[in-house]
């Protein structure tokens, strides 16, 4: 029996030595960034960046692009120019140009979810202008690490301070398919020297339909229950003459939603509690208890006005990133079944009651 087992093992080793699915690292070019831009007749401009080693061992990003119908076709076409097999296993970001995002992005994500080798945690972003131009600038950014690494760090940091939403391919799909819930993605632009995060791109289904700036994205995050640490410059003309501002660092926030569903459109009431620190206060007089109370009131009023602006933008874009539709579906299913949420959503009135608590104001009054 032992001989038979040994023979069997030997046979298996012989059969397994082919290693059909082996991937030799030296023969692979890892795609780190992907860009997708709209082209006429349903075509796309598919661009990728890969790190390539230069003489002396310094990695240098390399940008390639091709016009195709699908991302996988694009990858195979670019493979014809490559020294190694192109693999997406280390993909960090997928950028969509504005025009492409307006056309709809879902179809171009299919391959990333279907193929288990692809990481579904890669970040999706919308870039101002085209993704190709974004990467064209990115590969020339001086004094910065490779674009994939730099952008990863940039986005991680921006997520931590709530300036952009924390989304990836998997969460985009979940939000896209969930009834009464819409996805949002980070919005970013490139300059000659670096990238700048701009806030959030609002999506109606899979189409880019509006945007929020970084402060608005943070406040939206509070409503969504995403914790963050965010600085907000608050106009303080009521505290001192001139167009002065004070800076509040929000370190905590939570929101309570009350949803009234009647015969007509539902009504949403948010009670928002923000806690923060007064980081900058240049009014020329000390912070007393009375002043602090005024600071809190002014900050709360500013946040409330911002919330009203955010709500107007969400209604205009007919984008429901807060999942009000999902909540109506869950708790008022009869209403949900009788109404078309896309038609109801822009008619929803929302009011915001904001309370701000300043925990401290540093070591000087």
């Amino acid at each position: 029996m032992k001989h038979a087992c040994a023979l069997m093992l030997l046979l298996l080793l012989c059969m397994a030595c082919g290693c059909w699915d082996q991937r030799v690292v030296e023969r692979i070019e890892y795609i780190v960034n992907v860009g997708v831009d709209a082209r006429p007749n349903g075509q796309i401009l598919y661009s990728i960046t890969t790190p390539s080693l230069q003489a002396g061992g310094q990695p240098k990003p390399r940008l390639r692009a091709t016009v195709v119908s699908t991302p996988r076709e694009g990858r195979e076409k670019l493979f014809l120019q490559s020294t190694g097999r192109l693999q997406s296993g280390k993909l960090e970001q997928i950028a969509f140009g504005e025009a492409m995002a307006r056309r709809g992005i879902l179809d171009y994500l299919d391959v990333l979810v279907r193929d288990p080798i692809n990481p579904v945690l890669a970040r999706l972003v919308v870039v101002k202008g085209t993704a190709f131009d974004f990467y064209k600038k990115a590969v020339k950014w001086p004094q910065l690490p490779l674009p994939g690494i730099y952008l990863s760090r940039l986005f991680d940091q921006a997520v931590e301070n709530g300036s952009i939403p924390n989304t990836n391919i998997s969460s985009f799909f979940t939000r896209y398919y969930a009834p009464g819930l819409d996805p949002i993605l980070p919005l970013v632009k490139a300059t000659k020297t670096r990238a700048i995060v701009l806030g959030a791109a609002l999506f109606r289904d899979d189409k880019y339909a509006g945007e929020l700036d970084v402060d608005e994205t943070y406040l939206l995050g509070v409503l969504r229950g995403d914790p963050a640490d965010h600085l907000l410059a608050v106009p303080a003309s009521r505290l001192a003459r001139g167009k002065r501002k004070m800076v509040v660092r929000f370190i905590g926030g939570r929101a309570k939603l009350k949803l009234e569903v009647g015969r007509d459109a539902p009504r949403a009431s948010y009670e928002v509690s923000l806690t923060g620190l007064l980081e900058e206060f240049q009014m020329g007089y000390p912070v007393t208890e009375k002043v602090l109370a005024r600071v809190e009131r002014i900050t709360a009023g500013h946040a409330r006005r911002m919330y009203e602006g955010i709500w107007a933008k969400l209604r205009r874009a007919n984008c429901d990133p807060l999942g009000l539709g999902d909540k109506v579906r869950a708790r008022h299913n009869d209403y949900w079944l009788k109404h078309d949420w896309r038609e109801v959503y822009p008619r929803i009135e929302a009011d915001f009651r904001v309370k701000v608590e300043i925990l401290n104001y540093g070591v000087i009054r």
Partner: protein
Amino acid sequence: MADTPQHNISPGQLTVFLISAQLGLGIFGLPRHAVERLGHAGWWLVLAVGFLTFLGVMIVTALCGRFQSSILTVHRRVFGTFIGTAFNLLLLAALFGLTVTHFALYIQVMKVFFFRITPFTVVAAILIAPVVYLAAKGLKTAARFDTFVYIAILALIGMMLAASREASWTFLQPLLSFKTTAFLQTMFRLTFGFVGFELLLVVYPWVREKAGRAALAAVGITALVVTTYTVFTIAFFGEEFVIKQVFPLLNLVRTLQAPVIERLDIYFIMIWLPAMGSSAGAYLIATQLAAVEIFPRLPYRILLAILVALVFLAVLPITRFDRVLVLTNYTGTAGMFVIGILWPALVWLAAALRGVRG
């Protein structure tokens, strides 16, 4: 003889053997089938089918306990040698079908995730070989190896806890909104996620004591794990996205990330791999034990070699993934409702009417 196959197992080993048989492969497509017609309330169905397995175990225990033997012996005692052997051969064929289906699914999971270019025959040979080794050593060794399933369950719980922040519990509401007709229609599609308990019909005489309690514990643990997992999957992906997934479990692990090592999916599958092998292995061993009882004159390992060769030959043509899924529907229904519940109940009834006892 040290090398003689050992089959006597303790109640604890029976529990882990049955959990492995049910959970290792059955869990993969379960949430998708559950939400296909019932939507977000599909997890109720998973729970309901879980309760049915309790019924199955009670019937099997009543039957095998009455005779203190396997169903193969019961067949001959109740129906006589000729008809009894015919029923035994039918049972052997059914177990063989379930074994082939489990191996086919096992191979497909590995093909889809890891070995997409590697020839089917090579993947099949590599995956079947360790299971054959366990089967050659006997039920006891296999049951000991099956303890790995507890680690797999812990990994699953850990994964759900790690991803729980991303779950949206409103996806599960309204809690009681489903159609009863859809409930009944969909039930059959979930059976593959629960088959495995019916192996008690064959392994019963090898359990030292309290086989019934151990089997109930096994189906209880399985029902709890798969229901929790289905609830979590719906809350994590939402019903609409779950429907679109072939194996929600594999997509769930793809969303996990850890510092430095980044993707955790490979590690999770590495942990789950023994559970998958155990699931297919449990069927192979049960089929082998049934074959040994039907053909007592053939040596154990010769019979095993013939069985493995037949399984290998039967698996080879099933290279298409969608065919495996169809196969799981048929064999799952046959395994759970016919072999696990209906047939033992009929045999018990026949034995009671004829007044036959062990």
